[in-house]
């Protein structure tokens, strides 16, 4: 399930940092590594996890592969969070009604 892949992908702090960097603008893997203590194979591995979670997509440009945030992946996170942010307050209102009706 892709939603669970998303949360797993972002549970890793390095991947989260990479993702946040890409959120600021698409770039290639070697430019991404600048300012990060990370080997090239490790970066490839992280990008591959982000890609299979649907968070990042790649596009070949000549000798380079350009990486950018995949808007569909972001929309899935936003959807799940939005649904349950609206759900719980309504459940709590129902809980308060119950508490009023209950005996001590």
């Amino acid at each position, binding site marked *: 399930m892709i*939603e669970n892949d998303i949360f797993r992908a972002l549970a890793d702090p390095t991947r989260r940092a990479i993702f946040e960097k890409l959120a600021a603008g698409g770039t290639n893997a070697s430019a991404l590594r600048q300012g990060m203590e990370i080997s090239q194979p490790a970066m490839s591995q992280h990008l591959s996890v982000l890609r299979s979670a649907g968070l990042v997509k790649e596009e070949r440009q000549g000798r380079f592969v350009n990486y950018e945030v995949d808007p569909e992946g972001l929309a899935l996170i936003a959807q799940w969070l939005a649904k349950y942010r609206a759900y719980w307050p309504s459940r709590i209102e129902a809980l308060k009604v119950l508490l009023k009706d209950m005996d001590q």
Partner: protein
Amino acid sequence: MNDDKTEKQRNGIALEYELNEPPQKVWRAISIPEFRESWLPKEALADPEATSVTPGEEVRYRMRDNTPPFLESTVTFRIAPNATGGTSLRIIHELTDTRSDRMTRAAENSNSPPLMLAA
């Protein structure tokens, strides 16, 4: 309403509510099925039985989405007395699946601040 401090978690949602009733009463409302049913109906749950219970403190249920792709998640209700004789209720709601153990462990090991998602 005297509600809610909201915070975003990296793999779910965490909410906190202040209730006027004492913890013993809130505990019955969240842990006894007949009471729970009236505010959190079993249709929302993958299993109407709690998956773990720490009496008077914490109860956890598995939830199921009511729309496709019917994602399973875990919700934890944690209660504690507050300063005014009422109850602080904390709701922690996380996506889970067969890989949830690994996912949770990774999250616990990380000291980094939670990802703030624009939503």
